[in-house]
C-alpha cells in the first residue's frame, strides 16, 4: 500500500468535500435571499438557532434555512411511482452527483498543505485534464436521461429529452471556447493553464479570451440548466422536468449535484479564463491562491443568481438556434482569430506594443461585427408575434 | 504475478466473442449494433495492449490507431443508427427477423 499517495489524496479531496457542500448550503440561502430582494420580497428570515423550548431564538437573517431544508429533505418519504424502474430511479441522482464531484478534483485549487505547487495533488495531474473534465461532465446527460426515463412520467421524459438536447448542443460552444485557451497555452493540463496566467496574464484580458469567456459562461449556464436556459425543469410547462417524480433525499441529491456542477463549471471558467488563483498578493502569499480561487467562483455564482432573477426563460427553438447559429459560428471564428493573433504576435516580437495594439483592435472589431451580423441574420426571420384570437 | 500481454489478449477475445454472441443471437437491430461496438472495442484493447507491451512505444502506433478507430466507430454508429431509424420508418419494426425482404421469392 502506498500510504503517501493515499494521504495526499485524502488531503486533497477531504477539503473539497467540506468546502463545496458548505458553499452549496450557503448558496441556496444567498440565492433565495437575493431573488427575494430582486422581486421585492424579504426571503427566508425566520429559521435560526432556537434559544429555549418555549420560543425565543437567534434568527441570524434566516441563516438556519439551509439546515432546516436539509433536515426536511432527509426525513421526507421516499416515493417511487408505480411502474417506475426502481433501480434506475435510485441510481439517477447518484449518477448525477458523481461526475460533478469527480471533476472538482481537477481544479487547480493549490491548497497550501499540498507539496505539489502546480496542481491540487499529483494523482489528479492528468495530462488531459481539460478534456477529462468535459468527458466527465458529459456523463451528466446520462443521469438526466436515466431520471427522466425511469420515472415513467411523460413530463419527466420530456424534460429529460429536452435536457439532453440542450446539453449536447451547448457542449459544442463550451468545448470550442475552451480550445482557445488550450491552444494558447499548448497544454491540456489544468495546472499548467493556471500557471501560465500568473501575474495578471488572465486570458479574459485579451479580446479573444473575453469572447471565449462570454461564450463559455453562456454555454455553462445552459449546461447546468440555469436560468434563462432552465427549460428542462420549466415548471410552468412540464412541472419540474426530469425530477418531477423525485422527493426527499433523492431530490436533495439532484439539487446538490446541480449546484456542485455549477461550482465545478465555474471553477473551470476561473481556471481557464480568470487566472485561477492569481490575484493581488498571491505572488507573495501562495496560500492566498485558494481564497482568490473560491472568491472568483463565488462571483460567478453571484452573477448566475443575478441572471436568474433578471432574465425570462427562452423558447425551445430559440434555445437551439442560439447554440447552433450564434454561439457555434462565433466560437469557431474565435479559434481562427486566436490562431492568427498568436502567430502574428510570436512572429513579430520586435514591433512589440504596436503589433499587439493592431491585433487587439482588429480582433475585437471582427468579433464584435460578427456577433452583430450573426444576430441580425438570426433575427431576420423573426416577425412580431401575431395572435389569432387576441386583440 | 504480473499482468502480461496474454491477459489482455484473452480478455479481448472474451469481449470480442461476447459481442459476436450478441450480434449473432439477438433480434433487435440496435442491440446488434452495440454488439458490434463491443467487438470494435475489444479490438481497440488489443491495439493498446500490443503497444504497451510492444517494442516501439515511442511510435505511438497503438494509441493513434485506436484514436482513429474510435472516430471511425463514432461515424459508423451515427450512420448505423440513422439506417436503423430509416428502416424503422419503412417497416415500423427494427426486428431483424421481420426484415426479410432480402428473401428470394
Amino acid at each position, binding site marked *: 500500500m502506498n500510504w503517501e499517495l493515499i494521504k495526499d489524496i485524502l488531503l486533497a479531496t477531504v477539503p473539497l468535500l467540506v468546502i463545496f457542500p458548505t458553499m452549496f448550503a450557503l448558496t441556496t440561502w444567498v440565492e433565495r435571499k437575493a431573488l427575494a430582494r430582486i422581486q421585492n420580497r424579504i426571503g427566508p428570515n425566520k429559521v435560526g438557532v432556537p434559544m429555549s423550548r418555549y420560543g425565543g431564538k437567534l434568527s441570524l437573517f434566516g441563516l438556519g434555512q439551509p439546515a432546516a431544508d436539509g433536515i426536511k429533505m432527509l426525513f421526507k418519504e421516499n416515493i417511487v411511482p408505480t411502474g417506475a424502474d426502481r433501480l434506475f430511479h435510485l441510481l439517477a441522482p447518484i449518477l448525477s452527483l458523481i461526475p460533478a464531484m469527480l471533476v472538482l478534483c481537477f481544479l487547480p485549487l493549490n491548497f497550501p498543505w499540498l507539496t505539489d505547487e502546480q496542481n491540487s495533488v499529483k494523482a489528479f495531474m492528468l495530462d488531459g485534464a481539460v478534456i477529462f473534465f468535459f468527458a466527465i461532465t458529459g456523463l451528466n446527460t446520462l443521469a438526466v436521461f436515466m431520471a427522466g426515463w425511469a420515472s415513467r412520467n411523460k413530463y419527466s421524459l420530456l424534460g429529460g429529452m429536452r435536457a439532453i438536447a440542450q446539453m449536447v448542443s451547448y457542449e459544442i460552444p463550451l468545448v470550442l471556447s475552451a480550445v482557445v485557451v488550450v491552444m494558447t497555452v499548448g497544454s491540456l493540463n489544468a495546472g499548467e493553464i493556471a500557471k501560465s496566467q500568473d501575474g495578471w496574464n488572465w486570458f479574459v484580458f485579451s479580446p479573444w479570451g473575453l469572447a471565449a469567456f462570454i461564450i463559455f459562461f453562456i454555454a455553462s449556464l445552459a449546461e447546468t440548466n440555469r436560468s434563462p436556459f432552465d427549460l428542462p425543469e420549466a415548471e410552468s410547462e412540464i412541472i419540474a422536468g426530469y425530477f418531477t417524480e423525485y422527493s426527499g433525499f433523492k431530490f436533495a441529491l439532484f439539487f446538490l449535484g446541480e449546484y456542485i456542477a455549477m461550482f465545478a463549471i465555474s471553477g473551470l471558467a476561473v481556471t481557464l479564463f480568470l487566472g485561477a488563483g492569481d490575484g493581488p498578493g498571491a505572488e507573495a502569499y501562495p496560500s492566498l491562491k485558494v481564497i482568490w480561487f473560491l472568491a472568483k467562483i463565488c462571483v460567478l455564482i453571484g452573477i448566475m443568481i443575478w441572471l436568474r432573477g433578471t432574465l425570462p426563460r427562452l423558447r425551445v427553438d430559440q434555445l437551439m438556434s442560439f447554440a447552433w447559429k450564434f454561439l457555434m459560428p462565433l466560437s469557431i471564428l474565435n479559434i481562427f482569430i486566436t490562431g492568427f493573433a498568436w502567430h502574428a504576435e510570436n512572429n513579430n516580437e520586435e514591433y512589440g506594443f504596436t503589433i499587439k495594439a493592431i491585433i487587439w483592435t482588429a480582433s475585437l472589431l471582427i468579433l464584435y461585427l460578427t456577433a452583430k451580423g450573426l444576430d441580425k441574420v438570426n433575427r431576420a426571420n423573426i416577425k412580431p408575434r401575431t395572435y389569432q384570437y387576441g386583440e | 504475478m504480473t499482468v502480461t500481454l496474454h491477459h489482455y489478449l484473452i480478455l479481448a477475445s472474451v469481449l470480442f466473442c461476447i459481442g459476436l454472441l450478441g450480434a449473432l*443471437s439477438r433480434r433487435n437491430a440496435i442491440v446488434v449494433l452495440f454488439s458490434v461496438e463491443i467487438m470494435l472495442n475489444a479490438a481497440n484493447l488489443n491495439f493498446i495492449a500490443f503497444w504497451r507491451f510492444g517494442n516501439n512505444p515511442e511510435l505511438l502506433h497503438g494509441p493513434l490507431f485506436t484514436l482513429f478507430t474510435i472516430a471511425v466507430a463514432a461515424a459508423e454508429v451515427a450512420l448505423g443508427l440513422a439506417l436503423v431509424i430509416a428502416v424503422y420508418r419503412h417497416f415500423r419494426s427494427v426486428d431483424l427477423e421481420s426484415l426479410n425482404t*432480402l428473401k*428470394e421469392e
Partner: protein
Amino acid sequence: MSFSTLALIPLLPLLAAAVIPLMKSGKQAAGVAIGALLGSCGIAIWAFYKTWILKIVFPPFSQNWLTIGGTEINFGFILDPLTSAMAAMVTFVGSLIFIYSAGYMAKDKRMARFFCYLSLFASGMLGVVLANSLILFFMCWEIVGVASYLLISFWNHKPQAAAAGKKAFIVTRIGDMGFLIGILLVFKSTGTLDFYTTENNGMLQILPIGTAFGFKITAVISFLLFVGAIGKSGQLPLHVWLPDAMEGPTPVSALIHAATMVAAGVFLVARTHPIFQDGGMLPLVAWVGAITALVAAFIALGQYDLKRILAYSTVSQLGLMMVGIGVAGVSVGMFHLLTHAFFKALLFLGAGSIIHGCHEEQDIRKMGGLAKPMPLTTIAYLCGTLALVAFPFTSGFFSKDEILAGAWANNQPVFWIAALASLMTAVYMTRQCMYVFPGVHRGNNEPHESQGIMTIPLLILSIFALGLGALVRNSLLETLPGFPAKHETIVITVSIAVALGGIALGVLIYRGRALGQAIDPLALKPFEQKFWFDELYEATVGRLWTLFIIFSEQLNALLVFIRDLTVELTSRIGTGFAIGGDRKLIDSLAFDGLCNRIRCASRSATRVQNGFLPGYLRLIALGAVLLGALVLWTS
C-alpha cells in the same frame, strides 16, 4: 521542367473536373475546362520545345507511392520525346475539340456535366501519356475507360447510347483483363513496374529472362499487353465497340476515336516496344493491324451513317498504325498516330459540323449539296479527306508512306494488304464526299453553316492536317526509336497509285448517279464485289446463325415429338396402373413423395437465402471461423 510542373499537365484538367460541379452554368464550366486544358497545352508545348528543339534529356521522375511489406510500388512521370510529342498532340487537339464542344453542346442542358467528363477524360489520357509506371499507366487507362463510358452514353436517355457505352466499357474490359495479367507478370518477373528509373534502369531496360506457359516470358508479357491494346485500340476481334460508340456526341467521337483513347493502345505498344521486340511479337502486331485495316476498310464501304464510316476508317487507320509499329518501330507508328490524330479529329469535327448543319441528320443518303451552304466546313472536310486518303504531300501521305516502306522491307504480304486497305480508304472516302458535298440537298431541312466557335477549330486543324507531315517527318524519325526503311520506287509508286486510283475509282463510280434515291445503289453497280466482301462478312455469321436456328428448330421438333410420345406412353401406362389399383402406391410414394422430397431439398437449399439477417451474420462468422481454423491448421 520539374516533377511538379510535369504533374500539372494531367492535374489541371483533373482539377477542372473537380471544380466544374460547383459551376452554375455550362458556359462557366466550358470556360474552366478549356482554360485548364489550354494551360496543360502550354506546359506540354513547352515540354515539347525542350525535348525536341533543345534536345534536353530529362531523367525519369519516380517516387515511392506505397510500401507493402518489402514491396515498393512507385509512381512517376517521364518526359521523353515520345511522351512530349504525344502530350502536345493530345492537349492541342483536345483544346480545339473542347472549344468546338463549347459551340456544339451550347444548347444541351447538361453542358457542365459534359465538360466535367471531358476534363476527367483528358486528365486520364494525359496520365496515360506521362506515366512512368505501368501501374499508374493502368490506373489512368481505367480512368480513360470510365470517362469514355460516361461520355459515350452521355445522352443516356437514348437506349442505343446507353447500350453503346456499356458495350464499349465491357469490350475494353476484356482487353484490360489481359493487360492486368500482363502487368502482374511483369511485376513478378522484374520486380518493378517503372518504365525507366535512374538507378536500376527500369522495366524496359532489364528485360526479364525466363519462360511462362512454355513460351519466352517476354513473348507472353507482350502478348498480354497487346490484348489490352487490342481492346482499347479496337483491333480486330474486339473492334465491335468502336462503331457503336458513335452514339456519343460528336466531339466525344473526335476526342475518343481520333486523338486519344484509341491511340492509347497504340501508345502502349509503342511505350513497351522493347518487350515486344524481345518477345518477337512484332509480326503478330503487324498482321493483326493489317487484317484489321483491310476488314475495317471494306466494312466502311457499305455504311451510310456519316460517323460510322469515319469510325470504321479509324479502326482501319489504327490497324495501319499497328502495322507501322510492327514493321518499322515506334517512330513510324507514332508518326501515323500523330498525323492521324489531326486529320481524323478534323474529319470528326467536320462531320459534327455537317450533322449540326443538317439538323442532326446522320444519314449520308439524305445529305448532298452541302458545298454551297457550308463552304468552310466543306473545305476543312476535304482537307481532312485528302490527308486521310494519303493524297501526295498531305500529312497522311508521309506517314502512310513510311508504313508501306517498312512493310515492303520486312513483310511483303502485309505490304500488299496495307496497300489494298489504302485503296479502299480512298474509295470510301471519295464515296462519302460524293454523297455529301456535290449535287442537290436531299434532306428535309435547309442546311446552314455552323457558328464561328465550331468552324475556327476546323480551319486550324485543316492547316495541321495538310502541313504537319512534311513539317515533322525528319525530326520525328530521327528522334524516336525505330528503323525506317529505305523508300523503294515501287513503294512510292504504289502509295501514290492507291491514293489517286482510289479517288479516281470513287469519282468514276459515283459521278452522276441519283444518290440516295435508289434503295441500295451499291449492290447494283459493277463494283459490287467490293461490297460483296462486306456483305459476306455479315452473311456468313448470319447464315451460320440461321443454320443454327433451323437446326435448333428441327431438334426442337424432334424433342417435342419425343415428349409427346413419352407423355402418351406414360399416360397409357399410368392409366393402366391406376386402373390396376395401385394409385395409392404411385401417388403417395413415387409422385407426391418425390415431389415432397424435392420440395424439402430445395427448401433446405433456400435456407441460406432466406432473408433472415442474423442467419447471414452467422454465415459470415462461420466463414471467419473456418478461415481461422484453416490458418491455424496450415501454420
